[in-house]
């Protein structure tokens, strides 16, 4: 009898608990009717700012940011300079993230918005898992040439459909060390006229070496580094993803490999960490660091007439326009119109001028404001070290705005597929290590990439 009463009591409590639990969750859901989920590989303070603002303007919407990785607090290096925080999930890799996303797409439970930039986005575009945003952009009145860099905004395309919208961009720049210029006896006009292709850089280096009879270097790094930079510039010759064409067994690719190796063997490249050698280098190439020239005290100059930095360019006259962050709406988005509103918030002037945006914002006004603030910030940092910019920060910012206008209207290299790039780098490393010949590497790459494109 007692046992029966106890079991009845327990059953009753369990049932009550279930009902209460259901009631509680229902009560929570009633506060926010709608939800947007955004997936990103790394946490993004910029996204958090946008989410906060969007929720303020849309009280009935809950914005949930799902960052795959977790990082600790940023590490302060000095006043105004911080390093990223510690990676709290070192065991989770990009491959794990891609598997997670693929499984979500397969189960029709993908997030509404996806921050691209780390994943092979052309594959998602190819598979039709990203919504075509062409009509959204065309029908939104704020997206005009006056307010946005429309060339950049419409750059994420696959077979004429826009699958993502960039938040920010930068241009691969080639910097020149001032001391090296002086030693080489060069003047500013030399730089004013030319954009630096690999060919005219080599010509200049050979001329100066012969004239000055001193050890000058082309740039820093090793043959692999040089190859990565050159491949980025010339990849369109070897790979056309949309047309499913690969030309790695072409003589041009084999020549490129051999040239890079020869550059190292002939002492044209200097190894990092050796101060004297760095100062004897004509050029330094940094991928993706557009405003780095403003950060480097060695330059003291700035982007503008003195031209200590110019975009890297290939023989076809194309520059490397890099999209640092881009966002897409997935096919599983429950409310595509709401997602598009969120994207508009992301690209608004208010949000894009945030210091958390990495690179030049696609919003023109935001870019102008950011350039001024960055120049002022650099000027302040240089003053701490007893240096200063040659012109006023505002003047520098104005010149930079003019330069950006020039760059976004230049032809640019369409980004290649990141997964194919990884295969190229992995395979070519065998050549640079001396394990395989250039012809063997080219043949293997051609077979692999052809398979990847035509499966």
């Amino acid at each position, binding site marked *: 009898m007692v046992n029966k009463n106890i079991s009845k009591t327990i059953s009753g409590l369990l049932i009550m608990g279930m009902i209460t639990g259901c009631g509680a969750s229902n009560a929570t859901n009633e506060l926010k009717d709608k939800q947007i989920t955004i997936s990103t590989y790394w946490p993004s303070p910029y996204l958090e700012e946008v989410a906060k603002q969007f929720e303020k303007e849309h009280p009935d919407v809950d914005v949930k940011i799902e960052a795959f990785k977790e990082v600790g607090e940023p590490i302060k290096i000095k006043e105004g300079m911080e390093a990223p925080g510690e990676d709290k999930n070192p065991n989770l890799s990009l491959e794990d993230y*891609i*598997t997670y996303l*693929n499984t979500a*797409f*397969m189960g029709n439970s993908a997030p509404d918005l996806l921050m691209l930039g780390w994943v092979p986005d052309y*594959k*998602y575009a*190819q*598979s*039709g*898992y990203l*919504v*075509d945003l062409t009509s959204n952009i065309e029908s939104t009145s704020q997206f005009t040439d006056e307010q946005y860099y429309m060339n950049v905004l419409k750059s994420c395309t696959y077979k004429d459909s826009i699958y993502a919208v960039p938040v920010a961009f930068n241009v691969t720049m080639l910097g020149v060390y001032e001391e090296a210029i002086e030693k080489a006896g060069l003047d500013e006009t030399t730089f004013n006229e030319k954009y630096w292709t690999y060919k005219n850089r080599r010509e200049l280096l050979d001329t100066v070496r012969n004239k000055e009879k001193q050890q000058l270097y082309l740039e820093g790094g090793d043959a692999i580094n040089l190859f990565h930079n050159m491949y980025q510039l010339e990849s369109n010759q070897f790979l056309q993803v949309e047309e499913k064409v690969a030309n790695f067994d072409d003589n041009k690719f084999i020549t490129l490999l051999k040239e890079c190796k020869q550059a190292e063997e002939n002492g044209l490249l200097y190894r990092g960490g050796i101060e004297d050698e760095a100062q004897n280098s004509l050029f330094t190439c940094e991928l993706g660091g557009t405003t780095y020239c403003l950060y480097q005290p060695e330059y003291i100059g700035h982007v503008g007439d003195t031209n200590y930095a110019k975009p890297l360019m290939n023989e076809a006259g194309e520059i490397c326009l890099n999209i640092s962050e881009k966002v897409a709406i997935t*096919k599983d988005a429950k409310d595509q119109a709401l997602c598009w509103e969120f994207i508009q918030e992301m690209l608004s002037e208010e949000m894009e001028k945030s210091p958390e945006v990495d690179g030049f914002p696609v919003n023109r006004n935001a870019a102008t404001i950011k350039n001024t603030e960055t120049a002022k910030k650099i000027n302040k940092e240089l003053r701490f070290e007893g240096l200063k910019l040659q012109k006023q920060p505002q003047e520098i910012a104005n010149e930079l705005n003019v330069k950006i206008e020039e760059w976004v209207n230049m032809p640019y290299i369409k980004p290649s597929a990141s997964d194919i790039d990884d*295969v190229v780098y992995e395979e070519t490393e*065998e050549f640079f290590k001396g*394990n*395989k010949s250039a012809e*063997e590497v080219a043949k*293997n790459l051609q*077979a*692999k990439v052809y*398979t*990847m494109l*035509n*499966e």
Partner: protein
Amino acid sequence: MTHKRNLKGIVFLLPSLLGFSVFYLIPFIIAFYYTIVAQGVNASFVGLQYYIELLKNDIFINAFKNTGIFIGICVPISMMCSLGIAMGIKTLHDQKRLLQCIILIPMIIPTASIAFFWKEFFSVQGLFNKILSIGGIEGIDWLNSKYALGIMVYIFIWKNIGYNTILFTAGLYNIPNTYYESASIEGAGSIAQFKYITWVYLFPTTVLVFIMSIINCFKVFKEMYLIAGGYPNESIYMIQHYMNNMFLSLNYQKLSTSAYVLVSFILILMFILRLGQRGIKDED
């Protein structure tokens, strides 16, 4: 009474059947949907379009061909070697169990360790090339050469010979010795004994080993993937590579279609095998 016994059997089988249905059968049936609708935002009915495209795709055809060649080489060699070893072990008077244990060692080594070892062994800077250099032979990247298939065949046989040997050993021990004694008395030599006694009574075991070998051929993808990656040399690019890459590319249509094509092929093979088995039973 029979009905009650059947019911008992079904009840005991139910958990396993349920698991099989939930994790294999139902998803496989649902996958058929992906083979007949277009991918992407607007999924429209496309009929057999994906099957036709797949059968015209030279990458898939190459993968299918490579899988067929791999099975065609590995299964007979593996079966012959393991039968030979089993018969050899049977004739031994001592150290039988020790030999059986030694042969099974490759099976218990973790896949990742096997992959790591053989990848390093056959790499450009690996031990194999160093051994060859002693003899003045220039080493190559074996896993990226035309010999890659031979290496994978060798790894498969090395790994699976133990399992097949145990199966054959069990089958051999099930054949009564009196048959061999009678045959010897009648004047039958070893070849005749093998042909008319061993082969005939070992046939059910042979069928089992054949099926298990084919299954193990598909399982070797694990080692292949770890050794040579998702895009290996074209001679060892198998159907599983194709399917794995389709999953990673989110092309579930091609993935499901290739799964159905593969299952159809296996069903045809099993049907032929069954006919063959029946034929031999009828002759008996």
